[in-house]
């Protein structure tokens, strides 16, 4: 048997498979145990993509609710994790679009009030960016593959399969993401 660490618990792969089968039949207790097993991974992924705890929590909840209602359509129980990761990715992409629109509108309003002289010296201290903030500056497609590699621990081949993109694209996006992140950190 293979052992997987999930949320500090050692859960047997066969037990997870059993949980998924039971959850597919509508067993809410089994589904609750699945949520416990994967909530950390899902939240971490969402938070890394959005850098907002509230939004990440919403995505986590929405992802599991979607998973519950779509579980019956899952043909291979062993594909549950990659399938769930895809759901989280899509939800985060949608959220990101909405947040980008809100920010653009807020920025437009702010530009009307900002002095033409530019930011004050105090603002420079705030510009020292953390890695989380720098990550938000790179395109979401690049950010996602970097997160899946560095935080979620997927291999290049697994990322390629998960996101339905060629292996070459995965490599180029990770490379571009790292370069972009380095530049953002150097700016700060």
């Amino acid at each position, binding site marked *: 048997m293979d052992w997987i660490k999930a*949320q500090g618990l050692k859960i047997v792969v066969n037990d997870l498979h059993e949980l998924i089968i039971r959850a597919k039949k509508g067993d*809410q207790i089994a589904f*609750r145990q699945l*949520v*416990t097993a994967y*909530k*950390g991974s899902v*939240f*971490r992924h969402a*938070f*890394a993509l959005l850098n907002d*705890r509230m939004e990440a*929590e919403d995505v*986590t*909840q*929405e992802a*599991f*609710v979607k998973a*519950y*209602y779509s579980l019956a359509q899952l043909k291979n129980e062993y594909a549950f994790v990659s399938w769930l990761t895809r759901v989280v990715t899509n939800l985060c992409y949608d959220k990101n679009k909405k947040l980008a629109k809100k920010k653009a509108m807020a920025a437009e309003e702010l530009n009307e009030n900002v002095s033409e002289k530019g930011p004050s010296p105090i603002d420079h201290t705030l510009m020292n960016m*953390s*890695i*989380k903030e720098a*990550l938000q500056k790179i395109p979401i497609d690049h950010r996602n593959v*970097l*997160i899946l*590699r*560095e*935080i979620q621990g997927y*291999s*290049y081949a697994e990322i390629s399969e998960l996101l339905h993109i060629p292996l070459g694209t995965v*490599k180029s996006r*990770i490379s571009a993401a*790292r370069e972009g*992140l*380095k530049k953002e*950190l150097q700016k700060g």
Partner: protein
Amino acid sequence: MYLDGEIDEQEKNKIEEHLALCPECRQKLQELSSMKEQLTSAFTMIEIPDRIEDKVLSGIRQAAIHKYTWAALTFMIGFGLLFLLSMIQIFTAGLHIFQTTFSISRGLIYAFPSIMGTIPNMIVVVSIFIVMFITMALIMLRYLVHTMGKKLRVEDI
């Protein structure tokens, strides 16, 4: 790829040979490696919110209520439209019957004088018939009364 261990042994050896000779590449590798570590530690140490399980199950219940509400609403609208349609059909049929009856009655009313006009002395003939009918009725009534009276006299004796 070298940083992620996603290369084969041959390529790895080539890169390591180059790194041994190139301080610039060594520096770049060091920077990327440091960034990789920062990224991993920044997100693996984050606190996972409590009670996500409860929120998820609550979300599942809300979604179920939402689904059933929409289903019930769709059913009611469908039933309502069907009822309205059948009422319109009944109303239309009833209206058609009324219109037909009215047309027939109106036709008869308009036709009566014409019929009367086509037959010569029709009014005279009809009047004679009415008089004859009334006369016959009176005769029969008198006979009836007379018959009933004779019966009484015999019973009295």
